[in-house]
């Protein structure tokens, strides 16, 4: 390139006075470009996070006449011994263990289906994506009725298929409530993962697939040895995202069960709201925030390591 990129202006060393003024301009204007974002990021993300860490070592309440004092690791110790919190964390883990593989698998199947060159494929794509657009609050309200133990459509269909032998209590039973939440979650968000995987599939080199076909590879072999390796990073991303979403589980349980019955659908974020808002124990909720942050960070670090390994 003949043109000197502006970006190198700062590195051009010259003592001409006219040049020098020009050299400083990018410096100043870059900070003008950055300033609004920096202010928002600092005030509403970085500083609150620092405050979360700090308050988690105190006895702060939302509004309290008592002075704030340091309590060391007490909040974390209390969390560790808090049966409700442990239950919530366990629920998140079970939820993740089931939903991540099932939802990723279903998303991949849907992505493969809508990646075929058949008619109405855009219609199907839109149908699968519609719940994502509607929002979880809407989906949860509808499924709350579908899961009604007496009159719900889900049990109606089950009765028909099993001649009345299988009739779960769904949201009313500690055994099935989390399963119902899983089903709603998958229904409401699998379209999102589908679209991301579809983008990955469309980047798979067609000549590679054709070469494999010419070499006599079966469709299954082509999928395993050409498609899957090509979309590996996308798959890792989708798995990570779904895992993080699993730990962010909140809207569905807030609307459908409020964590019940008997804590069987309680989650970390629901505990965060109960402790921090309803019980106004800000310090303890901050400890939950920090734990939550560490979980999400750990998942992300693992993902980045997995992606780097290959690229």
């Amino acid at each position, binding site marked *: 390139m003949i*043109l000197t990129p*502006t970006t*190198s202006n*700062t590195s051009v060393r010259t003592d001409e006075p006219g040049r020098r003024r020009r050299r400083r301009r*990018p410096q100043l*204007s*870059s900070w003008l*470009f950055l300033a*609004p*974002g920096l202010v*928002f990021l600092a005030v*509403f*993300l970085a500083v*609150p*996070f620092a*405050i*979360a860490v700090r*308050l988690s070592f105190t006895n702060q309440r*939302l509004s309290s006449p008592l002075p704030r004092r340091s309590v060391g690791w007490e909040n974390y110790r209390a969390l560790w011994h808090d049966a409700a919190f442990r239950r919530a964390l366990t629920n998140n883990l079970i939820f993740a263990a089931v939903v991540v593989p099932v939802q990723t698998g279903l998303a991949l*199947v849907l992505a493969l289906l*809508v990646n*075929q*060159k*058949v008619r109405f494929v855009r219609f199907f794509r839109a149908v699968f*994506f*519609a719940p994502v*657009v509607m929002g*979880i*609050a*809407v*989906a949860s*309200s*509808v499924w*709350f*009725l*579908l899961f009604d133990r*007496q*009159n*719900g*459509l889900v049990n*109606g269909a089950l009765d028909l298929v099993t001649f009345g032998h299988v009739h779960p209590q769904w949201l009313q039973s500690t055994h099935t409530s989390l399963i119902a939440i899983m089903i709603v979650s998958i*229904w409401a968000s699998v379209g999102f993962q589908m*679209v991301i995987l579809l983008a*990955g599939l469309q980047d798979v080199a067609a000549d590679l697939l054709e070469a494999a076909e010419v070499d006599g590879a079966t469709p299954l072999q082509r999928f395993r040895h050409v498609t899957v390796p090509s979309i590996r990073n*996308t798959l890792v991303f989708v798995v990570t995202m779904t895992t993080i979403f699993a730990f962010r589980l*909140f809207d569905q349980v*807030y*609307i459908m069960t409020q964590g019940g019955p008997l804590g069987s659908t309680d989650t970390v974020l629901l505990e*965060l709201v109960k402790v*921090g808002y309803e019980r106004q124990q*800000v310090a303890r909720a*901050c400890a939950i*925030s920090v734990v*939550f*942050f560490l979980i*999400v*960070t750990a998942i*992300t670090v693992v*993902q980045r390591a997995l*992606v780097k390994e290959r690229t």
Partner: protein
Amino acid sequence: MIRSQHRPRRRVLTYAGLCVAALAFLGPLLFMIVGALKPGNRVLTESASWKAFVPTSPSTHNFQQAVDRGSFLLLLRNSLIVSSITVVLGLVVNSPFGYALARFRFRGRRALLMAVIALTIVPFQAVAIPLLYLMSGWGWRNTFTALIVPFVANPFFIYLFYSFFLNLPRELEEAARIDGARQGRIFISIAVPLARPAFATVGILAFLASWGELLWPALITDDINVRTLPLGISVFRSVPPIDQGVILAFVLLAALPTLALFVALQRHFIASVARSGIKG
């Protein structure tokens, strides 16, 4: 094309798979629409069979109730205010940030880029309680400001803009610079128009996130005058007298604006979400 003609069996299987899946997705949607048209006492009594999909004695009574008793229009107005301002401010704040990271050389650029990437990990929920604590102190509870400002600057959106501008050829900007245009002017009249896909992506993702947000409004508001739709749904469902038909009409009305937008901008929605996966 040739392949699919060669393999009718595969096409049949594809269609079968697509139709089964579509049934699972359309069923609940149809149930919602039909139920919204039914008298409330019939929604559940008729929902265990095929009758769930037949609008027996349909009327718009439920919608009327959702608007009158559920204050639907007020909640819709609130959601529109919060989401539109969040999206616009988000574009205005994040795009120049990403542009500066991609185009300018200034001291601390690399460190700042690393900081932005590191911040993409911090989930909003991890700062919700300290924000609640801070904003309660500032008297910001039950304000639109409190609902908007935490979602304006977004490290991931900054990163999306950054990588978009990084891959954008700079020739036009260079030419303008030689003609003596200032940085701000170059950004607004050259870079921004070229970056329309990035703006669409960030705008749509920010809109979907803001429109669906439930946790933060549940923490920071308890006043219906600033309540947004997701929290409005959650509250309205538990206010007696509980009428399933009215609830379904309410959630259907709540889903309609975004569904309409989606139908109109389908390709952009799909492309935006697809682009959000191109990361790492």
